[in-house]
């Protein structure tokens, strides 16, 4: 759809699930019983992809790794994914749960906005029943907000994000919890998701299709042959033992930890950890996603989550992605700013305050920064400047064979948003197939994923 058409039509009615449960996805391959024991040194998992299929090892069990495992299994490759903790325990599970319409980034990061707009529709299609499809409101309160409208609407129009203007009274009828001093609001097709359960659908479907997913399995070393990565050495924390896994290509999908993983292969990737603090208060004070109609800032988004209301978020670059405290001043700022949008948030009882480390691409420089691979995949986007807010939410796929000091068999995917996990996986799988000389198209835009509960099926 063109941006023009999108802007002219009203926000399309999201469909409410009123009938029986959505049908289970039909896997393209037969289910395979899971094996309890990890294979011994050098052994590969037996998959339906066939013993001759190339074996891809993914490091990192976040949304990106899960979506990538799903994509690669659909393309007939053997996949093993290792994660040091539980799946989705790094950055993925911690986000506030916004399924972006793209509106948030329309003025500042057009490429991300366009991609979010497209992925939003795809995810609703392949993850039915996983979203609160209540749309979002960008609320104007101050003169500055009002002045921002023209730029915002124009940017949304250019990014194919449908919008609809609600006058003050109309907005208050829909969301009585809004600040009554609001001037008007712009409705956009934002939605909320369960930050853990949407990615679990990718993991569940990937495993059903033959991927081997190993949580509590931490990479301790790369097995290198000269400048070629041939696999990894891992420590299985649950079985208390170390073993090696061989692979044709190793993919670093470790999010903000990608830099640390890359170092094991002697590679540098320009990923920085950007700490965002979030706050949850008791009570569901709105049904829609409420954002401030202005440039992105701290505490400018309020969204419902079950019987809570979640406020996001701040942006501070930190040295260590494991150093995830939530400073009191940032919590206070978050509550202060969000109260301007939804006053009840400031009066509500605090349920939790936490932080997550976003993986941001810290500049196009550095060895491996060529990202040549993703150029072919149409994936790598944008450049970046130096500070948390200034860094765009781009993602990049680095084929380290294209580095100044080439490393074969090693690819890094990092950056991006939860909303763009599928697109990141598609571009990375394209890179993998190209490296292997395979011509296998992506199928993930249409395969409906298994429900999250399937992740826990025996």
């Amino acid at each position: 759809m063109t941006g023009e058409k999108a802007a002219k039509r009203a926000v399309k009615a999201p469909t409410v699930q009123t009938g029986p449960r959505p049908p289970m996805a039909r896997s393209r391959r037969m289910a395979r019983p899971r094996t309890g024991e990890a294979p011994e040194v050098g052994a590969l998992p037996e998959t339906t992809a066939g013993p001759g299929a190339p074996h891809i090892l993914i490091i990192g069990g976040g949304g990106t790794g899960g979506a990538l495992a799903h994509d690669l299994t659909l393309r007939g490759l053997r996949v093993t994914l290792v994660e040091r903790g539980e799946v989705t325990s790094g950055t993925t599970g911690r986000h506030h749960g916004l399924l972006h319409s793209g509106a948030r980034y329309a003025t500042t990061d057009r490429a991300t906005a366009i991609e979010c707009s497209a992925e939003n529709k795809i995810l609703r299609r392949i993850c039915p029943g996983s979203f609160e499809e209540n749309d979002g409101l960008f609320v104007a309160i101050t003169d500055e907000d009002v002045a921002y409208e023209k730029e915002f609407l124009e940017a949304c129009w250019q990014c194919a994000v449908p919008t609809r203007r609600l006058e003050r009274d109309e907005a208050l009828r829909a969301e009585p919890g809004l600040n009554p001093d609001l001037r008007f609001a712009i409705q956009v097709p934002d939605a909320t998701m369960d930050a853990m359960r949407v990615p679990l659908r990718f993991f569940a479907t990937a495993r059903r299709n033959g991927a081997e997913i190993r949580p509590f399995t931490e990479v301790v070393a790369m097995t290198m042959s000269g400048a070629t990565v041939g696999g990894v050495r891992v420590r299985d924390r649950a079985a208390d033992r170390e073993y090696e896994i061989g692979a044709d290509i190793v993919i670093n999908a470790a999010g903000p930890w990608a830099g640390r993983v890359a170092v094991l292969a002697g590679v540098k990737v320009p990923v920085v950890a950007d700490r965002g603090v979030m706050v949850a208060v008791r009570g569901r004070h709105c049904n829609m996603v409420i954002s401030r109609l202005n440039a992105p800032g701290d505490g400018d988004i309020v969204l419902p989550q079950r019987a809570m209301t979640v406020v996001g978020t701040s942006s501070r670059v930190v040295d260590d992605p494991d150093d995830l405290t939530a400073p009191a001043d940032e919590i206070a700022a978050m509550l202060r700013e969000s109260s301007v949008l939804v006053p009840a948030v400031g009066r509500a009882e605090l349920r939790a305050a936490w932080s997550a480390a976003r993986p941001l691409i810290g500049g196009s420089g550095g060895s491996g920064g060529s990202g040549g691979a993703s150029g072919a995949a149409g994936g790598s986007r944008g450049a970046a400047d130096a500070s948390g807010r200034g860094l765009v939410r781009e993602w990049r796929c680095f084929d380290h064979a294209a580095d100044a000091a080439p490393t074969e068999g090693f690819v890094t995917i990092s950056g991006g948003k939860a909303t763009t996990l599928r697109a990141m996986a598609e571009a990375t799988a394209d890179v993998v197939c190209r490296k292997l000389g395979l011509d296998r198209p992506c199928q993930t835009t249409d395969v409906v994923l298994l429900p999250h509960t399937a992740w826990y099926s025996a």
Partner: protein
Amino acid sequence: MSPRAIRPKAAAPIESTAAPTELATTPVESAGPIESTMPIELAEAAGPATAERAGRPNVRFRVSRWNKRLKKAHFDDFDVEVEPGGTVLDALLEIRRRQDPSLVVRHSCMHASCGTCGVRVNDREVLACDAKLADLPAGRPIKVQPLANQRLVADLATDMVDFYARFEPAGMPPVRAAEVGAEIEPPEAVRTFMRFENCIECGLCLSACPVARTNRDYIGPAALAAAARVVDEPRGQELGPVLALAAEPDSVWRCHDAMECTAVCPSAVDPAMAILTLRRHIAADRVRGLLRHGA
């Protein structure tokens, strides 16, 4: 090899002056600042053995450990510098980061929404991310154990497969119509406001249930609460199979009304009330059936 002797992971060098301790009970040296900003309750919680340390107070955690190489579980003690307002999960992650990277613990959202970090703290089922250290009794170690009545993966991580095997057949969709502000008129293009179910599938209720402790076949409170949700808001779903599930021998009639499930639920689901509701529905169905046969 003892889990204590595992070297720090190479993937993420641990930037800590505190090397992994050789003995589980050896306190870690504190390198914190001199001034304390801790609330008094937290300083007391640290106990006399550790409270005098400079900087943020240390709190002793007694953590249950087990992995596939060990015959039985044991406790390891860790002294952890706690943050003001910190939670049990914060402390567990701090242990994993600075003292023992082999600690296996499940977690994801950090704010009581995903339900993965259920554990028993001082013999009570809680979400570790929701258990504020300031709320725990002072002066004695904080005991952390995995959930009961469920299979163990390792240390504090339980395998949720059995939980979902009971939960899934109830067929509860993850989203429902929002009841808050039901009288409110949604904006154009939004037909009905939707919201996620309260149940976060954490398994605390199953762990706390005294019936589940003695009867492995009992379907358990979470599955029955899910069944009651479907009965409450069927949205086109056929109720016969759901009520049949609830009427099975190891279902609603096994419940002893101990109410432990409702007491520990972190998400206000009230499985105990749900079980009573299901019993009424089943009884009413039977009465209707008898009347039909009598007619």
